[in-house]
């Protein structure tokens, strides 16, 4: 569904991402692996239209050419993004955050369906619809952020470090929810520091080094590689 090639991002002289090629389909969880500064966040931001990329890139979602769209139109085209550090409206309520997530979609019947879906995924939010998001815990805020993104009915969901700063228990809950989101038909592309946990729910992975994708494949092929395991998954 999401089909990317020739995607490069530079900040001045520094090349953050060079000629990236990747694919994400509906229903799969794809992990972006790499050290700090390898270009993972640049890739996510470029896809969401939040950073400028070198012209000539090819980014298609189904039949839609995303390179022609403004950032706010990309959401409506079916690509939703939860940036690092949440992306919630802190002083607004949970309900308002979810309603805003559906801003690009105007279909009321589907709004109710999606709202039910989000509350089924994150039942904790049900009791807190009126609560202001900034008063919630990190894990709960991340649920709101992902719920907000799901409200637009995305084909592909981009997540940048969703487990950052969360307790192990909250991370487990989050990863289980991400797997369910994919099983319900949305493709998930996520950057994760917590490679071991994310590999447990992922289908495929890409490895980024110095702005280039150096390896890709089924997560099992990554788990077979001892060098990789030591470098990115910790231990052996």
């Amino acid at each position, binding site marked *: 569904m999401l089909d990317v090639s020739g995607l490069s991002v530079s900040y001045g002289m520094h090349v953050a991402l060079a000629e990236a090629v990747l694919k994400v389909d509906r229903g799969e969880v794809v992990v972006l692996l790499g050290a700090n500064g390898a270009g993972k966040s640049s890739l996510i931001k470029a896809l*969401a239209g*939040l950073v400028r990329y070198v012209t000539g890139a090819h980014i298609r979602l189904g039949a839609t050419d995303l390179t022609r769209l*403004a*950032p*706010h*139109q990309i*959401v*409506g085209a079916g690509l*939703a*993004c*939860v*940036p690092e550090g949440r*992306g*919630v*409206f*802190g*002083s*607004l309520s949970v309900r*308002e955050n979810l*309603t*805003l*997530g559906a*801003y*690009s979609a105007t279909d009321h019947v589907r709004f109710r369906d999606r709202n039910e879906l989000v509350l089924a995924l994150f039942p904790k939010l049900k009791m807190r619809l009126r609560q202001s998001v900034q008063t919630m815990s990190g894990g709960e805020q991340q649920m709101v952020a992902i719920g*907000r*993104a799901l409200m*637009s009915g995305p084909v592909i969901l981009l997540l940048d470090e969703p487990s950052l700063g969360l307790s192990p228990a909250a991370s487990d809950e989050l990863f289980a929810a991400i797997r369910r989101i994919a099983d319900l038909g949305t493709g998930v592309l996520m950057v994760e520091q917590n490679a071991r946990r994310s590999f447990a729910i992922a289908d495929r992975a890409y490895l980024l080094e110095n702005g280039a994708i150096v390896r890709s494949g089924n997560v099992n092929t990554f788990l077979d590689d001892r060098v990789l395991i030591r470098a990115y998954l910790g231990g052996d």
Partner: protein
Amino acid sequence: MELMFAGLALGGLYALLAMGLTLQYGVARILNLAYGIFVIAAAFGAYVAKVQLGISPIVALLFSLPLGFGLGWALYSLLLLPLVRRTRAGPQLDIDSLLATFGLMFVIEGALLWIFGGNFYSYSYLSHPVYIAGTPVEANRLVVILVALALTLLLHVGMNRTRLGLAVRAVEVDPATAVLAGIDARTISALVFGVGGAVVAVSGVIISMFLPFSVSMATEFLMKALLVVVMGGLGSISGCLLAGMTLGFGETIVARFIDPGLTLAVNFGLFIVVLSVRPAGIFGRTV
């Protein structure tokens, strides 16, 4: 009683004035220094309509809404949007937009001075008294109070009960996240400048009904609006109403019982008291 209506009228006017500015500044994040001179321009517009064309100020009030909206929208789209694009809404935008609106203020001020000169203008409209519970109140003050309260209510409901209002608050709270929700911050900013323009136009027409006005009062209105905005908490409609009423009543009481020359001192006195207790304003959020 009479004092209460005077306070209500002045407070309502201040609240109204501040509402347009709080939307423009709070949501579009542009401090429009030409705000005050637009108010005066609208007052002159109503004056010309009444005195030379014989159009009732109430009719002018109705026409001023779409006209003000159009002007505000055009101001953002034609003058400010190119600056937003060029600076990519970075820190340079603050300086550029201040200079641009400051310059615009002088252009309009010059034009008004050239046409009308520096004298005070006024006309008489609905100045006969209406008796409410035995107290005589000038009818035009009642119009001021009603219009101010109606617009406050309208804006409050619009901001808090509609989808579009929610989008406006989203841009106010966090423009970066608003984009991720599929909201175009620039369209919302243009809209908000339009609404601000409509509020400016209504304020100007209302002022012309019950106060003598001159070109030189533009700065005073800008300053009062800014005072109320900061006191009420940036972006808060109810904050504008409360802070506007506080200033209106404070001024009226001091002018009546002590000395009219003290009004400015009262303004800033209240300002300092409120901000020392609540630094982000009455309904302000600490970000």
